[in-house]
């Protein structure tokens, strides 16, 4: 049936046709995945006045700002958002009631123009700006705010972000521009948490659909933010147009693009070629690659992040003694970590509250300058002796354990190596185990009993509020939640509760100062350093803060 004569020419002609066919079908398939009303035949053409007919036109007219994202967003519905890329794109389309000052993380008016708490901090009333419109022209009112909160707390939606707001009991629409949240218990940090993980969605679109299963809004989001989605080619790019009716005034740059670029080196290459204008959350390790380049600069600012060594306190033979933890802390050369890992862009950590939150940060707690001799003296006084192999032992237990880290963040695994060396210098032996992230997180979350993990290095990203540390240190999170070291201290619990419930900032300050003094001595975690958030950008791009830049895109402009 195939015959005996095999013709190479026919074979080539056929394969050539197939190849041409795929090329053509690809051109058309990329435009079918466009969800927007742009309706252009070709994938990227004619989205706005800014899009010229040649690459050069885009570069010189500078009416388009291009950012990278590392993955294709699965959803742009803020209720369902769960990944970094999703949050980044969603943050220019949607807005919360408040947003945080990028220098000190104070909550500032956004959709809400003012707010106040009741005396017991259990109800919070927000006054909304008037005449705020969704991208489709519908008014955004208190009804939408209530709808959003209700959906986030709806068990059927199972919103990951909603888990932050389990303290919310009910939401009440007082009048079209006033909304009151009634909480189950007092919560002073409520506005700050709203700024981070909450964005209003339109009731009139979502009330008739099953939010959990419906995906049309995921792909065609309608918000009140400075930019509206106009084109989305899955896994390639998203194009957004300026929202001329944005309530803080129209953005200065007409078009915004997010390119899906999974490789960090390519992001840097594209920044250098001008294909990208800025890279938010620029990694410390990449700063040398762009510093000193003409036309490029890196801004650094506050980040709500701290790095720490975590010791499983459910292994009391090893880590139960406070002196052992202090010895391990003295053994670490933190300045060397900052110099080597962050290129000097960081600050020695004294506790879990970052210094930029000036009212709550206590600089005068116990500190641990690099001092190997003191570390050894502490171990000796705690009854440990150095064996013939130089490793400390006590009652048959050796200070020889596994140090876990995870892949994908070079700062974390290099940090593990440097700390391993520091500890080896005083006679503490560790074996580094670098796990894939999902394996790592399962291990430290679900496997922290007496037979669980030994130690790990990681960073924590609390909400930028002292109360953001509640879950990391409260004993009700010791078995399962984010209190990974299983630390239990009733006094700390009490202070965290006071800080959470009290609205008088002076009283909160007292509670958090005391909290910082206790954890600095007791060391439920060995705090290492506070890194900074960086924004790498072209020098002609102005107006963006270095921290949380994507929340302030309406201010960006080209010179």
């Amino acid at each position, binding site marked *: 049936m*195939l015959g*005996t004569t*095999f013709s190479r020419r026919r074979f080539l002609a056929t394969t050539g046709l*197939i*190849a041409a066919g*795929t*090329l053509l*079908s*690809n*051109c058309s*398939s*990329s435009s079918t*995945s466009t969800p927007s009303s742009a309706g252009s035949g*070709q*994938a*990227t*053409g004619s989205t706005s006045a*800014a*899009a*010229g*007919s*040649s*690459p050069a036109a*885009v570069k010189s007219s500078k009416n*388009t700002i*291009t950012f990278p994202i590392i*993955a*294709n967003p*699965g959803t742009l519905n803020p209720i369902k958002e*769960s990944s970094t890329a999703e949050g980044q794109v969603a943050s220019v389309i949607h807005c919360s009631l408040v947003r945080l000052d990028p220098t000190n993380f104070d909550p500032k008016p956004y959709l809400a123009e003012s707010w106040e708490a009741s005396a017991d901090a259990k109800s919070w009333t927000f006054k909304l700006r008037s005449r705020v419109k969704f991208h489709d022209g519908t008014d955004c009112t208190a009804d939408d705010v209530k709808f959003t909160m209700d959906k986030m707390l709806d068990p059927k939606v*199972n919103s*990951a*972000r909603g*888990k932050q707001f389990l303290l919310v009991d009910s939401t009440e629409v007082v009048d079209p521009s006033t909304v009151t949240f009634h909480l189950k218990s007092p919560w002073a940090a409520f506005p700050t948490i709203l700024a981070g993980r909450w964005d209003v969605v339109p009731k009139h679109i979502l009330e008739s659909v099953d939010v959990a299963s419906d*995906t049309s809004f995921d792909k065609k989001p309608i918000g009140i933010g400075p930019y509206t989605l106009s084109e989305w*080619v*899955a*896994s*390639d*790019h998203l*194009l957004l147009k300026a929202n001329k009716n944005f309530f803080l005034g129209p953005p200065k740059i007409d078009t915004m*693009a997010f*390119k*899906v*670029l*999974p*490789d960090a*080196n390519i992001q840097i*290459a*594209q920044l250098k*070629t001008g*294909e990208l204008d800025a890279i938010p959350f620029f990694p410390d390790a990449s700063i040398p690659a762009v510093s000193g380049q003409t036309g490029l600069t890196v801004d650094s600012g506050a980040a709500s992040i701290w790095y720490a060594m975590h010791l499983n306190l459910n292994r009391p033979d090893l880590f139960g003694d406070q002196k052992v933890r202090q010895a391990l802390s003295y053994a670490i050369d933190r300045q060397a970590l900052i110099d080597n890992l962050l290129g000097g862009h960081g600050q020695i950590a004294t506790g879990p509250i970052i210094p930029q939150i000036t009212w709550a940060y206590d600089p005068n707690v116990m500190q641990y300058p690099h001092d190997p001799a003191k570390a050894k003296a502490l171990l000796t006084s705690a009854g440990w002796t150095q064996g013939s192999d130089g490793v400390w032992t006590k009652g048959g237990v050796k200070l020889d354990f596994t140090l876990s880290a995870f892949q994908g963040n070079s700062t974390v695994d290099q940090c593990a190596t440097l700390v391993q060396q520091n500890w080896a210098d005083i006679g503490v032996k560790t074996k580094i185990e670098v796990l*894939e992230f*999902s*394996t*790592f*997180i*399962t*291990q430290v979350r679900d496997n922290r009993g007496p037979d669980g993990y030994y130690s790990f290095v990681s960073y924590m990203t609390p909400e930028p509020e002292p109360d953001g540390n509640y879950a990391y240190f409260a004993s009700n999170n010791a078995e399962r939640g*984010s209190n990974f070291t299983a630390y239990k201290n009733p006094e700390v619990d009490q202070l965290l509760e006071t800080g959470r419930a009290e609205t008088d900032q002076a009283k909160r300050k007292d509670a958090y100062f005391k909290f910082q003094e206790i954890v600095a001595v007791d060391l439920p975690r060995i705090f290492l350093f506070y890194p900074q958030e960086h924004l790498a950008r072209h020098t002609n791009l102005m107006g963006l803060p270095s921290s949380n830049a994507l929340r302030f895109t309406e201010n960006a402009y080209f010179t």
Partner: protein
Amino acid sequence: MIVYLRRRLWHAAIVFALVNTLTFALVRLAPGLPQIMTGDTLTNADRMQFRHNLGLDKPILEQYFLWWSHVLRGDLGTSWTEHTPVLHVLLTRLPNTLILAACAMLISSIIGITAGVLSAVYLYSPLDYAVTSVGLFGLAVPSFWLGLMLILLFSVHWQLLPSAGMYTLGGSAAITDRLTHLILPTLVLAAGTLAQIIRFTRSSLVDILGEDYIRTARAKGLPERIVLLRHGLRNALIPVITVLGLQLPRFIGGSIIVESIFAWPGVGRLAYSAALTRDYPMIMGVTILISVVVLGANLVTDIAYTVVDPRIRFE
């Protein structure tokens, strides 16, 4: 012929079932959680809820048979991270990968066969050594390194070619624009295969040029060009076809690194991100696609082999 085909198809079906069963088991046995369950704020109850919603609380055998019953009805499920049907995602990504694969295959066979022939004709000449060393270089360098170096030179330093993506954002997406975006990823993807094709063409042609019928052809006064192309190359290409066929799956499934570096929205990158986020339906979808391509390529190669080489007959 029909009997042979039927037997081969049976073999293919068995291998297909085995590959997918193995992947299904490995994915579920691997430590770690799907990304949607690793959120900082999730409690254990939430995770149980997720497990229930996704059907992960059922016995693994039940999950396995449920999965097959869906697959056999053409339902590959919905991606957990993209919130889109897996089949739809695969079909939008596949053409991008095929374009890249087709170009890489075309480039590597044209350059590879030409270079191989030159090498064989001018055996042990400086040209032969140059071709073989360049080929060896292509095979030896890791593609992520080659990709980054090419980007550094052609995009960042000389600003001749775009560094990544399929077309210029906001540009006209004209065919020339798409072609310039194809050049670098095609080169990197072709590099490894190129070396193999050069080597196979060269050694096979060297063998054949020593055959009696070549001497006969020369003896009867045929021009050297005819001897080389019609009598030599035609026979020498038989093993090269096998190599090309075996490389096809590599182009489809093995382009993970190239697609990641060049931000090429194809199947390889999809496989990588699905594995990282533990997107089970997507991992299985990619596995099905790639196993179909590999088995199909093997089958086609075998059939092509029997067609081009008269010495091989169907039983």
